[in-house]
Structures are given as structure tokens and as C-alpha cells.
């Protein structure tokens, strides 16, 4: 904490500080990543998946993403399940996600906008 000596410095601090309150604003315009955290999800490793996603977001300094959890949706054999919902786009559900896949989902789908077809839920 030092003295802010100029407007430019104040603007810089504001832009950094925005991350502090970013999560509380404009959430409807952000990409949502939803991790299935029912008992089935947790026992299949959803917690590790969640941690990998958070770590990847932090590393990449993404600010327009929110991560939430959800309960069991009935497809327990496909857990861990991860949904990616981009604003104004249909929901994409990934199945049998592990931490490595989770990182790739963040990199390829969330950041680069490419759906990873082979991991998407099969039409059963």
C-alpha cells in the first residue's frame, strides 16, 4: 500500500481491484462453468476437477468466468460432469472429466471457443 501519485496510477489500481468485486457484478454476461457435485460426482473426483478449473482460471487470469456447482442430475455413470454455458450459446456438457481434461476445457472451449466434441455427452 503506497501513495497513489497520479490519475494513471489510480486507474491501474482500479483495474486490478476490479477483480475483487468482479464476482458480484454482471454475472449474466459471463461464461458459466458448472461442476456436478452430488455424492456421485464427488466420489468420481469432481472436487479435483473443480480445483483444476479454479487453478487454470487463476493462471490465465480470466475475469469473465464464474464457477458454480450443482447436484446430481441422474447420469451418475458419466460423472464428473462439467457444463460450459457461454452467454447466448447452448449449454455444452462434458462427461467423465478429470483434472487434465478440465484444464483443456478451460483452455480450448472457454478461452478459444472450440467445443471439444469427443468429450461431449453421447446421445444415449
Amino acid at each position, binding site marked *: 500500500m503506497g501513495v497513489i501519485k497520479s490519475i494513471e496510477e489510480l486507474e491501474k489500481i482500479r483495474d486490478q481491484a476490479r477483480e*475483487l468485486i468482479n*464476482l458480484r457484478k454482471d454475472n449474466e454476461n459471463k461464461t458459466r462453468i458448472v461442476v456436478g457435485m452430488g455424492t456421485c460426482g464427488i466420489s468420481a473426483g469432481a472436487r479435483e476437477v473443480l480445483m483444476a478449473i479454479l487453478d487454470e482460471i487463476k493462471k490465465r487470469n480470466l475475469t469473465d468466468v464464474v464457477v458454480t456447482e450443482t447436484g446430481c442430475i441422474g447420469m451418475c455413470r458419466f460423472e464428473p460432469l462439467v457444463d460450459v454455458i457461454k452467454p447466448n450459446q447452448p449449454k455444452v456438457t462434458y462427461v467423465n472429466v478429470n483434472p487434465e481434461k478440465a484444464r483443456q476445457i478451460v483452455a480450448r472451449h472457454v478461452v478459444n471457443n472450440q467445443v471439444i466434441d469427443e468429450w461431449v455427452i453421447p446421445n444415449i
Partner: protein
Amino acid sequence: MEFYRAHVLVCRGTGCTASGSESVMEAFEKEIEKRGLSKEVKVLLTGCLGLCELGPNIIIYPEGTYYCKVKAEDVPEIVEEHLVKGRIVERLLYKERTAEERMRALTDINFYKRQKRIALRNCGLINPEVIEEYIANDGYMALAKVLTEMTPQQVIDEVTKSGLRGRGGGGFPTGKKWQFAKDAPGDVKYVVCNGDEGDPGAFMDRSILEGDPHTVLEAMAIAGYAIGAREGYIYVRAEYPLAVKRLEIAIEQARERGLLGKNILGTGFDFDIFLRLGSGAFVCGEETALLASIEGRRGEPRPRPPFPAIEGLWGKPTLINNVETFANIPPIILNGAEWFASIGTERSKGTKVFAIGGKINNTGLVEIPMGMTLREVIYDIGGGIPNGKKFKAVQTGGPSGGCIPAELLDMPIEYDTLTQAGSMMGSGGMIVMDEDTCMVDIAKFFLTFTQDESCGKCPPCRIGTKRMLEILERITNGEGREGDIELLETLAKNIKASALCGLGQTAPNPVLSTLRYFRHEYEAHIKEKKCPAGACRALITYEIIAEKCKGCGLCAKVCPVGAISGERRQPHVIDKEKCIKCNSCIERCPFGAIVKK
């Protein structure tokens, strides 16, 4: 910077803190630590969310889920269900009174939907004890803008064009006040923030100081630049310990970051702010008394002119605005005068914060655009009157204001309409009364307050309000005389015309407005020796209706003075000599067999 997937905001305003939000916050911190979620979930305090009635209140982001009446015991469940498994804890959600469904987000509920938050923009959103959170929401950018892009005169012109009027009571145009202070000759000038909020039931300014202290500091610095002052004082009541603490933290942080002090943002502008605590005298909300109190003298008003803008603190030109007025300044500078002037009505611009209390479902703090009707505020936002009772009147403007009856519920809320109705905008207290409220008793209550708080300097206020109070006391005691109403009116007129300061000049208002709309109640007290609302003890008697009484004996058991007697399964009777009119029997009777007359 750590990426937190969830923020748990615990309301730590005075209301929620009193209902136990501190232990809720501690429970969250402990539980989150215990479950190893400290790196994912952040717990922080925030300012008043408005629904104080339902505290402790919390909000969890990113979902924005609003939980009310949260107890420390609920915390493990919220952490397990919401924060780990992503399942909303339905039972703690807010339930709309009119519908069965439970509402998830604060922004969805009727109480919130109709509001427009400008002065309260940061309350409940940021952590008031962390300056970076204020900066993140464009805090201090308005100060930066005026220091680099605007001349002092341009700042004043912008405030004038916005149409902002004082939010503390008088409703004087803010821009004009700033202009007077700027034009006053002198090298040393002061900016003073009036935080001496004294109306019974009012807590608008307290909530702003607690929830967003930096906005007041920033606005005072802007005012300092505009009028040419280098020092500011905030006068706040010592009864607001939380507001004082948050202000102290805010001032210290602003100084550390060079946003107060010398050479602010490298522009060569110096400005610093100091706190002065008042001891809670109502009269110190009057500007000349407030200045005397800051100077260390007895808090008594003096005649004006000279106005403080010419001769204020230590005889120097001084600008005094209240907390809420200041809170509107940074958004006006950042968004422009046109934006602000587009909100509200022709003669009352912007929004107003109200503390709603009394006989209303949603007690709390609301900010509404000017021009909204009283009905919308009381029914749509306030949720109406509890227990199916009928609305009788709403009191605005505190002890200086008046009571507005049901016929005027569709009146838009504006400075001028309220004044025409015999009340005033005041600082924003709004007390709702139902059919059980006696209007003579209410007038007596407010007059007791002003009489208590009268500083005693001028005779009209010191002696005049005392005489008025004595008359009201005898009326409510059933000893009212023919001619009392006229006597009250004469006294009121003379006090209004001759009292020294605003406190005395407005003290008769509660009496005058109730006389205007509820004269028949005064007459019933005096001529028939009856209190129509059944509130004045001296004028009511309790009776048991023999046909309805089953002789269960519950009333006799609950009566503290043994005034009720009767055989079992036979109608009971009340001994009126012994009865102390405590109302216990009515509350206990399962058959509605006891009545007040």
C-alpha cells in the same frame, strides 16, 4: 490474485450486527477453514442491504443468492449444500408475502425491484473496510476527474445543473449552497458533513457511513476543491460506533493512499478530513448549533444571517451538507448532471433514501426515485400493513414533519408535494401507522421529543412547546377543555413565527398536521372523552361481553392485579377500579370476548 469462486457477503450494518451477524460471519470463517475451502470461497462483511427486519442477511455470489434470518447454526448446512454441492438452501430464502414461491436473488424481490440505488450504490456490494473495493467500483475517479479536467466553477455548475437538493431536511439547492461558499471572501474555508442524524426511527445516513464511508470522503474533497477549502470535518453521533469505526478506517486508508492529505494525485490539491463526535443532542443537527459544537462550545443555534456560507466554522466561510447529499456527488460528477436530472420529477431530481418503520411488514432502508407515490413505497416495497390492519397515516420528516392520511396515498413523493400536504421530505424517516394508532397520542409523542431536545435558548421553543405539550397531555388524559384546539393552533402559529432555529420553527408541525387531517380525533377526546383508536389509557375501559364469555378463567389467571373474577363456566367481570388497562386479558382471551371501549 487468488481466484475465488464464491463470495459470501455478510451484512454488518447495525441492524444485522444487532441480530447476530458477527457470529454468523465467524461461523462461516470457521466452517470454510475447516472444510479446506479458504482458497476458493471468500467471506467478507458489507453494509446494509435494506431488509433489516429479516437480519442477519447474507448474499452468496456469483449466484447472488439472498438468505435471510441466518443463524450461526445454519452455517454448516449452507456451506455443505450451497458452497460444496451447489444446492440452494430453500428454507432460508426470502419468501414474498403475497406469493408462495421463495425468491433466490435479492434483486428479484419486490422490496428491491422498484428501488434505484445511487446514494446506496455500494451498500451491500462492497466491503466498506477495504479502500480497494471502493476504488474497484470507480471510487475516487470523480475526484480525479474534477482535479484534472474541471475548474472549481465547472464542478459547481455541474452540481447546480443536476438539480440536487439537500437531503438533510431543508431541501436547499446544493449547487447554490456551493456557489455561496465559493463566492464568500476569505482564504480559509471549511467543508462540513452533517452526520448528526437525530430523527426517531431514521438511519439513512448511518447506513451510508457504515456501508460506504469513502463516498462521503470523496465528495467532501470534491466540495473542498470547488469552494476552495483545504479542511473538512465530519460531525457524527457517538451513538453510531460502527459508523465512527468505519469512518476512522476509511480516513486512515485514504490518507495512506494519498487520496487525502497533501498533493492529492499529484495535482497540488491539499485536503484532509477530521472526525468530530457529537453526544446526541437533536439540536446539533441544526447547522449553526453543529458548528458551535465542533468548535467545542455548547450546541446552541444562533440567528442567521450571517449564514455559515459567509460566517461558519471559526468565523470562516463554511459549506455544510448532509451525508446523503454528499453520497450523490461522485455519481453526478462521473455520469453527468443530465443523467441525474433525468431521474425523478421536474422539481425534485434524483432519488431519496427512506428508513421505513412502524406498522409495516418490511422494516428497512430503501432508495427510490423521486415521484414514486406513497402507496407504492408502503405497499409495493414495504409489503403493506401487518396483521390485516388498516392503514391510517404515514409520518414523514420526523419531529419536524407531519402525518399524511390515507386520502393522500397516491401523492407523488416530492419536496413540494410533501410540504403542501403539511409535512416535509425531511431527512427520510417514514413511520407508518395503522388504525390502532391515536393521532393525538402521536402528536404528543413527537412534541415530547422536541420538548426534551429543545436547547432552551429561545423562549418560544423552550416555553411554547412545553405549554403545547401540557395541553396535549390533558387532552389524552380526558381532561381536555373547550377551546384547547384553538389554543394549540394559536401557540403553534406563534412558535413557528418566532422560534430561533429550525427545530423550534417546525416543532408544532406534528400537531398542526394531525389537527388538519384528524381534527375529529381531537374533538372526540375533548368532547366525548373517548379515544377512537383505543390507545389513550385514561379514556378506555375494558369490558367482558357476557354472551361471548365461556368462563374459562384464562383472563383471570393472566390479570396481574386480580381485577377479573367469576365462577367457572360463568361469564366473568372486570373490576374497572382495579383494572390497570395492561391489555393482557384481551391478548389471552381465545373467544374475543373482551373489548376496549
